C-alpha cells in the first residue's frame, strides 16, 4: 500500500510539473517603419553628446616610430623575442636618460584572429613591454598602456608582410 502511495505522489508531482507552461508571448505597440520591407535604409539620429575628449579619426599609417622603436611579435604570441628584448633595452635606456618623458604603449595585432581575443592579445603585448620597462627600473607611473587589437593596423593590406608589420607594440612619447 505504501509503495502505491509513493508511486501516486510521484505521478501527481510529475503531472503537475508537466502542467506548468511559460507565459504566453504578448503583442506590443508597433513602432513606425517609414519604408516598405525589402528596401534597406539607414537612418541617422540627432547627434549624441560630443565625446568628453575630442578624438581624431584614425588614419592608416599614422604612428610612425618616434624616439622609442616599435617591437614586433610572433603570430598569436605576446612574449618578447630576443630581437624585441634588444630593442626594448635601448628604449629603456632612453627613458632612463630622460626621466621627464612619459610613454604610452600601444598593443596591436594583425587582422587574423577573432576581434575580442585580439583586443586581449594586444593588451598582453603592451603589458609585456611595460613589465620589461618596470623591471629595468622605470617608474610605473610614467607608463600607460592601451590595446587596439586589430582595429588600428599600420598596414591595412591582407597578406603576410602587412600582418608582420601590424603585430607590434608602438610607443608614443610625451
Amino acid at each position, binding site marked *: *500500500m505504501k*509503495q*502505491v502511495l509513493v*508511486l*501516486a505522489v*510521484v*505521478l501527481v508531482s*510529475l*503531472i503537475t510539473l*508537466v*502542467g*506548468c*507552461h511559460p*507565459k*504566453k*508571448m*504578448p*503583442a*506590443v505597440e*508597433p*513602432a*513606425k*517603419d*517609414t*519604408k*516598405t*520591407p*525589402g528596401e*534597406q*535604409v*539607414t*537612418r*541617422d*539620429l540627432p*547627434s*549624441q553628446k560630443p*565625446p*568628453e*575628449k575630442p*578624438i581624431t*579619426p*584614425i588614419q592608416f599609417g599614422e604612428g610612425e616610430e618616434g624616439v622609442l622603436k616599435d617591437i614586433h611579435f610572433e603570430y*598569436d604570441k605576446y612574449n618578447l623575442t630576443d630581437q624585441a628584448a634588444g630593442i626594448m633595452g635601448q628604449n629603456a635606456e632612453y627613458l632612463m636618460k630622460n626621466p621627464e618623458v612619459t610613454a604610452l604603449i600601444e598593443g596591436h595585432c594583425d587582422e587574423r*584572429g*577573432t*576581434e*575580442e*581575443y585580439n*583586443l*586581449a592579445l594586444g*593588451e*598582453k603585448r603592451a*603589458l609585456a613591454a611595460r613589465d620589461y620597462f618596470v623591471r629595468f627600473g622605470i617608474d610605473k607611473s610614467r607608463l600607460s*598602456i*592601451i*590595446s587596439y587589437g586589430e*582595429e*588600428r*593596423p599600420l598596414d*591595412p593590406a591582407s597578406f603576410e608582410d602587412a600582418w608582420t608589420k601590424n603585430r607590434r607594440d608602438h610607443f608614443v612619447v610625451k
Partner: protein
Amino acid sequence: MTRRDKARGSGGVLWAVILGGLVLAGFGPAEYLRAEPDVRLKITSQGYTKIRIGFREAEPGVEGRLKDAHRQFLAVVRHDLEMSGYFETVKHADAEGTNAVVEAALTRDRDDYSFEVRLADGLSDQTIFKRKYGSSPGTFSQTAHIVADDIVYALTGRPGIANTRLAFVAGPRGNSHIYLAPLDGSERVKLTDLGTIVMSPSWSPDGSRLAYVSYQTGTPAIYVMDISSLAATRFASFEGMNATPAWSPDGRSLAITLSKDGNPEIYIVALDGTMEKRITYYSGIDCSPSWAPNGLEVAFTSDRAGGPQIFVTDSDGLYARQITTEGTYNTSPAWSPDGSLIAYVSRIDGKFQICTVDPFGVTTRVLTSSGSNEDPKWSADGMHLAFSSTGGGNSGIYMITRDGGDRRKLIDGLERPRNPAWSPPLGYGKQPPTEG
C-alpha cells in the same frame, strides 16, 4: 505478511505503474489538458518534421483598397513562418496533409485598422486561437511579425524570432558604429556616431538596454545605452582594458574583461558599477565571458592551455574545466538559452568556422564551412545563431539553425558588418493580448 498478501501488494504496485504510464502517455504539454487539436511539433529521431501550414482568405473579404496591404501582410507572415524553421508553407490551405491554417481579415474603422487572425487545425478546423491585432498603414509588417511569432508560440511553445532585432557593428576600422535593425533588415538605425572604435554590443535580458565598448574618451570603456531613449551612460572604466560585456541572465550584473590587475581577467560588476567579484586567476589571457542561462556558470576564452580554448568556470571562479580540445584556436563562446550547447569559433585550415559543443566538452559539431565566420550569438528561441561572415565578396551577418542548416543573409550593404547581438522578442514579459 502471508505469501498471498505479498503477491496482492506487488499486484497493486503493478496497476499503479500501468495507470501512471497511461496517464503520462496521455498528457503532454499543458495545452493538451484543454483538449486542443493535435497539431504540435512532432519530434522525430532525425530532428523534427515541419508543420505544414496554409493560408485561407477569411470572411468577410477585404475591401479593394486594402487588398494590397492584406496580401503584403500575409506574405510577411508566410516568410516569417518559413524563416522560423518550424514550418513548411503550402500553396493551398485546403490541400491534403495541411496541419494548420491561418485566416486573416483586414478591417478598417476610419483610422483604426485591425487584422483579425484565426489559427485553426488543418484537419478538424477547430480554432487554436482567434485574435484581433490593431495596426496602422506604417506598421503592417511589424504586426505581421507579431502574428507570426504568436503562431510559432501557439504551435511549438517557443518564442518566435520574427519580432526581434539585431544590434551590430559596421564601418571602417577606427570609425565604427553600432546599428539596430529588425530581422528583416528593412531599416537600420545608427545608434552611435562617435568617430571612434566601438565593439561588442550585448543586450540586457529584457531587451531594454544595450551594453557596448567604446574608445570615445581615448581608452576602451563599457557603456550602457537605454534603447528607448538612446541615452548612454558609462558603466565601467577601470584602469586598463574594459571589454567584452556579457549581461547576466537575471539582468543584475555584467561579466566583463578587465586588465586592471596586470593582465586580462574576468570580473562580475553590478549594474551600478560596483565590483562584485573576480572569477578568473590566470596570468595569461582570460576574456569573452558568456553566462549559462541558469546563472551558475560562465564560459570564457583562455590561453592557459597554450593557445586560446574555451573553458567553463562557476560564477565564483572556484573551478575551470576545458571544453574544447580539437584545434589550436577556439574563441568567442556563446551559451545557448536552453543551456544545452555552447557555440564558439574554431580556426580550421586557416579559416574560422562556427561550432557547437555541449557544456562538458563531449560532442562538438561544425556548423559552417564556407568563408570565414565569427561572432556567434543565439536567438532567444535557442534555435538559431547569428554570425558574421567574410570571404568571397559575401560579407555580412547571417543566421543558421543550431544544426547548421537554412543559412540566410540578414544584413549586408554596410562596410564589414560584424559583432551581431540578437534581441529578445520586443515586448517580452508584458501582458498577453486580449482574445478576440
